[in-house]
């Protein structure tokens, strides 16, 4: 399934847009990030032809890793069809000419914004997350000098206090996305603004998870099979959302659902946020319904 068959490779630009020495600089930073899971590695972020805040970190990480044999899937909000995902996919088709896909199992590199696919990832795959603000302590402490010191000392009490205050005020932890995690028992990390529903997928995942913050000039990583624990308390364990509804299109009860407003009377439906997962399930159901069809 080729998502953007008609984008031509633009020979004016180097493969992957970045020059080779910039790619090497990025790979060095990524190797350090993999060696120290969850630690934010500063890197010499470049201006990319897409705006800061629109995925320049993930785009640079992807550009430094991608090879001619790679198969690229790009998602935003779980969907291959959002304008931002299309734009990034078109960009890489233009500057690399690699094959693009919507299929999660087929892809070797998956740049994403705000979701982890529902289809489990496997060894050898790379997820690349777009990160707007890399520092998990930023809303508690605006100064970078201070937060770097807090990480060095593993001084994370302030975050526990904030979560506790949520429980005291609301009875719940009021963080629903970009929910802080501790990686490999050491560094506190922002998982990027994925819903906390996706946090458990980070834990022990066989795929390599790379995070790029272009504007903030940081990369970090969760290597395969690394322990990723969402912050919680013994008496308030970490929980994720489940819906009593199922997906209106494929009937899934396991996936993250988007609420779709159908009219101004409050009518709404729920559908899978991961459109590829939803599409696969619908296709399989159609196949099951007519098994002898064109066998």
């Amino acid at each position, binding site marked *: 399934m080729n998502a953007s068959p008609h984008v031509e490779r633009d020979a004016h*630009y180097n493969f992957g*847009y970045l*020059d080779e020495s910039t790619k090497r600089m990025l790979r060095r930073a990524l190797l350090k990030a993999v060696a120290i899971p969850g630690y934010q590695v*500063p*890197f010499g972020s*470049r*201006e*990319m*032809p897409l*705006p*800061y*805040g*629109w995925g*320049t970190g993930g785009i640079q990480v992807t550009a430094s890793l991608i090879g001619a044999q790679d198969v690229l899937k790009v998602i*935003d*909000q779980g*969907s291959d*069809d959002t304008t*931002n*995902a*299309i*734009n990034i996919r*078109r960009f890489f088709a233009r500057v690399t000419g690699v094959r693009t896909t919507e299929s999660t199992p087929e892809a070797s590199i998956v740049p994403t914004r*705000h*979701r982890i696919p529902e289809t489990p990832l496997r060894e050898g795959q790379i997820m690349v997350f777009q990160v*707007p603000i890399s520092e998990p302590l930023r809303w508690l402490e*605006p*100064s*970078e*000098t201070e937060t770097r010191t807090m990480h060095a000392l593993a001084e994370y009490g302030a975050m526990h206090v904030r979560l506790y205050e949520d429980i005291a005020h*609301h*009875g*719940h932890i*009021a963080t*629903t*996305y*970009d929910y802080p995690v501790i990686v490999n028992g050491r560094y506190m990390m922002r998982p990027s*603004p994925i*819903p*906390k*529903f996706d946090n458990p997928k980070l834990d022990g995942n066989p795929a390599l998870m790379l995070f790029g913050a272009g*504007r903030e*000039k*940081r990369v970090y990583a969760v290597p395969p099979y690394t322990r990723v624990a969402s912050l919680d308390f013994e008496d308030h*364990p*970490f*929980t*994720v*959302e*489940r819906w*009593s*509804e199922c997906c209106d299109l494929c009937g899934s009860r396991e996936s*993250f*659902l*988007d*609420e*779709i407003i*159908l009219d101004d009377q409050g009518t*709404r439906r729920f559908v899978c*946020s991961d459109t590829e997962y939803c599409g696969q399930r619908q296709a399989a159901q159609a196949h099951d319904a007519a098994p002898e069809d064109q066998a």
Partner: protein
Amino acid sequence: MYVAVKGGERAILNSYRALAQYRRGDETVPELTLAQIRQQMPLAVSRVMAEGALYDPHLAALALKQAAGDAIEAVFLLRAYRTTLPRLGDTEPIDTGRMQLRRRISSTFKDVPGGQVLGPTYDYTQRLLDFSLEDGEARTVASARAPDAAGATPAPLEAAMPRVTDLLQHDALIDPDAPPPGDPAPFDLTRQPLGFPAARPARLQNLARADEGFLLSMGYSTQRGYGNTHPFAAEIRYGSLEVEMMIEELGAPVVIGEIDVTECQMVSQFAGNAQEGPKFTRGYGLTFGYGERKAMSMALVDRALRAAELGEAADSPANDHEFVLYHSDNVEASGFVQHLKLPHYVDFQANLELLRRLRADHERQHARPTAAGPADVPATAVDSPAAARQEVQTP
């Protein structure tokens, strides 16, 4: 049946067409040429080169044309292009004391060697709309070519005019600015991430690329009392100079081009401390092209950022390194502000779900003590999709 947002690709391609039409405007009006932009909007070209951190008037004009006159969009185009350029080497430091000047003023001395030269400035134009520009510019061009007011053709400026701050330095009244011997290659902001505390080379590089409006406001804030530095504009100069590069094979520096720059040196008093007596200190501003407002603002902010190392109170926004240097870049700021246009419905959905749950909790709690009428209890709290949702613990 709801169809998940499809057709994004076609929408993007259609937006390219709509933008091209919008940018071109009425096709009965002749299209702008890059030469026209370069020659007749040189201040816009200067700003785009300065903040785009790339000295190329032709490409800056192209960026302005492509950006339909939006300076920040043009800066962004130039920066993105800059990423693809190879880094061949470093030029020799420029010596602004050897500039071919077109303008040079000092507000600290009535007369200085070389004199005060107003040059091309809007300063004393009286801002009355010039309706003669409406129908072509025959009259203005004619007056520009006329001999000067006294009837004489203007004499060429002296080849080299010493900088006013150099005169002060003679008397050791001001901190020196010459690089010390063996000065290492400076930090390169475009190749290395900014770290804190940021040394002055890193700060000046950041300010040189910074948004003019941001620097203007930060500089202005110091004048109004948020970290006042009591500055004087010792000298502002605008002109052109040659850029040289050492070519190893030739063993000598070779001129590779000529650039226009604007330089501003602000002078502020420093009270002195245990180690050194009172003296003047510098705030420095330099921009590509002709950018006096930016150069002056930059000099004010540079001086404000030195407050802590000079042992002064440094508690105003313009004194805060992280605050100033992290928020000065308009390509970064524009991208991040405008990324709010991108879809956020997954996160919004997660927040919506939480908010409904919190409101349901709130209504339940507040319904209980009144107990006057069970009919008050909102039925929707039970029926709403949000309330039907539950949290489950993960293994």
